[in-house]
């Protein structure tokens, strides 16, 4: 009993800080000047804030990570989930994530737009970890069922390709002004499918195999009359 109440208390506070923070940045368009100011505004002690988060950036990170958690929980709950192929599981993640993100669109736009430079923004790092472990899981599944092609060196990089795809769709969505973000749906459908087409066995594999065969069976140059 006691632990339960305490736990729900903690949850509530994590959430309430997230909420207050989102409200602040969306109204002011910038981060609060200091934790002190922010805490005072929300009638709590500064140290209370540090119990949950080390910094404002950590709050933002947690908002993104929570969304990812929620998405993962939601898609795995679907009745149809076990029947999905790896490709469909990835698609399902993308669709559900951006559906959830819709209710936080203003925050997402604010949060992404203030990022500069290349590579994974700091605030998406925890999200990336979650995403990658999910991606690795479904990709390995796909390789086991030979839905996807197991290539030396490359198959370990598949998850990176998916993460790049994720970043691409996220940026696309930020700039999408179509009704109901239908264009994002299209971007997901087409983008993820192309990526998985590349993961599958393709003529390139066959070409590679053929090259290997010729190399192993030597005398290639001599036989061709050079």
């Amino acid at each position: 009993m006691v632990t339960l109440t305490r736990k729900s208390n903690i949850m509530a506070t994590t959430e309430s800080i997230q909420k207050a923070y989102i409200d602040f940045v969306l109204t002011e368009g910038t981060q609060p000047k200091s934790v002190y100011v922010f805490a005072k505004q929300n009638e709590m002690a500064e140290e209370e804030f540090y119990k949950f988060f080390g910094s404002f950036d950590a709050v933002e990170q947690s908002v993104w990570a929570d969304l990812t958690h929620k998405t993962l929980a939601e898609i795995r709950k679907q009745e149809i989930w076990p029947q999905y192929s790896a490709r469909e599981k990835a698609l399902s993640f993308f669709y559900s994530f951006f559906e959830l993100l819709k209710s936080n669109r203003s925050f997402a736009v604010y949060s992404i737009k203030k990022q500069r430079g290349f590579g994974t923004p700091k605030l998406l790092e925890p999200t990336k970890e979650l995403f990658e472990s999910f991606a690795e899981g479904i990709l390995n599944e796909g390789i086991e069922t030979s839905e996807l092609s197991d290539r030396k060196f490359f198959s370990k990089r598949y998850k990176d390709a998916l993460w790049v795809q994720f970043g691409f769709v996220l940026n696309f969505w930020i700039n999408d002004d179509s009704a109901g973000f239908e264009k994002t749906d299209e971007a997901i459908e087409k983008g993820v499918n192309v990526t998985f087409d590349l993961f599958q066995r393709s003529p390139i594999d066959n070409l590679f195999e053929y090259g290997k065969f010729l190399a192993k069976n030597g005398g290639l140059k001599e036989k061709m009359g050079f």
Partner: protein
Amino acid sequence: MSDNTAKEQNSIPTSKVERSAKFVKTGFKIGGNYIKHYSKKLFNPEMDKSELNEDNATDIYQSLSELKGSALKVAQMLSMDKNLLPQAYVDKFTQSQYNAPPLSGPLIVQTFKKYFGKEPGQIYDKFNIRSTNAASIGQVHQAELKGKKLAIKIQYPGVGDSISSDLKLIKPFAFRMLGMSEKELNIYMMEVEERLLEETDYELEVRRSIEFSEACANLNNVVFPKYYPELSSKRIITMDWLQGKHLREFLATNPSQELRDQIGQALWDFYNFQQHELRAVHADPHPGNFMITPDGKLGVIDFGCIKVMPEDFYYPFFALTSTNLFESKEDTIKAFRKLEMILPNDTPAQIEFYYTMFKQMIGLFAKPYITNEFDFGEKAFFDELFGFGEKVSKMPEFKQARGVKHFIYVNRTNFGLYNILHELKAKVKTDTYKPHVEAVGT
């Protein structure tokens, strides 16, 4: 390397640039086909254009089938106008009426979540995530609810958006293929765009389907699926699953003349009841929109495309087909003027020319209406019809726009109907629902 075997549609070009590239490529190929044709013709002057048309049709179809969406729809539309297109195009385009690549399962789930906040599995007792049919701007899934078999139509995302840009892309093609003038083509394209955009509104389609199936409920041997507005939305339609065969499958079973007549009669009644009693018509008579049920009835499954006929078109037009108006040259010309088939600036010679041609054309079109019964299996009638179409298409006088825009869909509907009846080789009583002509002359 890759030859001309049927290409699988496993990729859809995304951006407009990519789509344009697709068309440009096809354009080159067609240019090549013409060169091939004329070089062959140098050696064999007897050669007719059908091989050339066949080559062009294959290339255009391949390009269109990779584009999907509205381009596919236009392909379907072109395939309806057999009177406008050489046979080779028609055969290729008819393929597009049956196949298009499917949407992924998660996108279907996503569409349901977006519009109902639930997964399909939570709405229906059973839902088959793999689609059974393509519907050109959407696809059809089987489902079950409370022991009833249902058909769920789901629209591809972004179809509405791409319609206008697709039509712009297809313009130079249509231009080339149909040999129309720019002005005529613009009228055509605008009317088509309007209808296509309507077709993307599934809420409208459900409303109309219910209206039309109720209005047509008393027709013999015509059946409609029941629609479920509460399980439908902008992108999803839920209706009863109609058991039956498509026209081609039905014909493959060698049905008896009696059965063919029965289906033909149902089709005739369905269309003429709408035209003359409802003044609005299911304007998409391509074979994929009909099912023939096991008990020999005609099932109508798609009300996406409805053409409303305004009075100022309806009365002058059907006065031409169903009165003795033709006996008076003066009155006929008056009617032609109302329908913009003869224009204010025409010279007396032009008036004479168009008067003769249009009279002949409408006389042909109205033939089934003149007698009480008409045998659509009669090849002579269709040869005459196509022959006339071919002749007209070669006349420079017909390169410019003639006739009000309503002709586009009304012609498409009626010629589409004639074509299906011809394929059925049905003998039909044509006096069941006659045109109304009372108001003429007022």
